[in-house]
């Protein structure tokens, strides 16, 4: 799973290609049958096993922050977006400031907007209930794989939906396993386990695109966040940093191919 839309430019192109392709002749790519959903499910089981390990890490980190078991499972089941869940833990306390939390979650998960937009050329052939039903399970791995398949002209709606269900099941299952580890460990800090969250988020940052433009965006985000952390009201730093980086990204755009 990674945060950046790796093949961003190419997907935009593919989207345009797909639009033309679908409207002209090949309207079967979006088909959603039991067979192809099951095939998609099976295809993503290996990746889902890795996702389960991340889920385990989340369960473990969440118990340390003091969430009760049902809240942890509930969060994984209902939110189903790792980085944002880890970030929520970072903002968790005896009280939670709900507006900064909501904005943070939105900023982290805003990449889903792009996934939905890039999938639209194929999704638009589905009736609304199925279209939005499929989107419930869209996350980084199944999005990336089905976009690749769609752009090769293969039917991938089953991969998107079935694969998403597989990822969801293993994410929740992994979280549940994490609860047992979390309750069995007495001194998590001495084992470095308080860093699960930080290291996870950092790995997500470095897993994305890396170039000079992105590096400078990160530096601006880090600097603004720190300034806000020291001089602005509590909990504003995440939003300030995200906006600063985002605005710079909108001004200094990548060359469109």
């Amino acid at each position, binding site marked *: 799973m990674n*945060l950046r839309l790796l093949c961003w430019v190419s997907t935009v192109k593919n989207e345009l290609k797909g639009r033309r392709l679908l409207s002209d002749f090949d309207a079967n790519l979006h088909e959603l049958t039991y067979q192809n959903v099951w095939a998609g499910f099976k295809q993503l089981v290996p990746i889902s096993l890795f996702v389960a390990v991340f889920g385990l890490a989340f369960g473990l980190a969440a118990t340390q922050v003091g969430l009760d078991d049902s809240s942890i499972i509930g969060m994984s089941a209902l939110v189903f977006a790792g980085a944002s869940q880890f970030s929520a833990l970072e903002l968790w306390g005896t009280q939670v400031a709900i507006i900064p939390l909501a904005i943070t979650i939105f900023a982290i998960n805003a*990449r889903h907007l792009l996934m*939905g937009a890039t999938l639209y050329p194929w999704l638009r052939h589905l009736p609304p209930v199925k279209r939005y039903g499929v989107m419930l399970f869209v996350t980084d791995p199944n999005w990336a794989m089905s976009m690749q398949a769609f752009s090769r002209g293969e039917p991938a709606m089953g991969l998107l939906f079935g694969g998403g269900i597989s990822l969801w099941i293993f994410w929740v299952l992994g979280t549940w396993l994490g609860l047992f580890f979390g309750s069995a460990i007495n001194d998590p800090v001495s084992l470095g386990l308080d860093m699960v969250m930080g290291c996870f988020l950092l790995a997500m940052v470095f897993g994305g695109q890396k170039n000079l433009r992105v590096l400078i965006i990160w530096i601006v985000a880090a600097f603004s966040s720190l300034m806000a*952390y020291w001089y602005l009201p509590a909990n504003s730093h995440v939003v300030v940093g995200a906006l600063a980086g985002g605005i710079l990204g909108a001004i200094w755009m990548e060359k469109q191919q």
Partner: protein
Amino acid sequence: MTIETTGFGALIIILVMAAVTLVTRWGGVYVMSFVPISYRIRQFISAMSGSVLVALLTPLAINGDNGARLALLTTAISMLLLKKPLPSIALGILAAALYRQI
């Protein structure tokens, strides 16, 4: 506005998180059915989704103990070299654990 995390509070927070995430999952498709999302807005979203993590991590790195900093540094270097998240995270945690045993 703050919400207590005891009892129903936690449930409300989780429901808010779920609702916001749902908006992001549905929003892109919904908006596209009216008007294509412009290149500039896409660039904004993609820059923002990385920046938000950086913004979250910076105070963690500044305020943390040396074990925390070593963990983050190890994860960053491993990600650059190995390009695999799971081993990088594991190495980061291991670095913090070893440092704190000394």
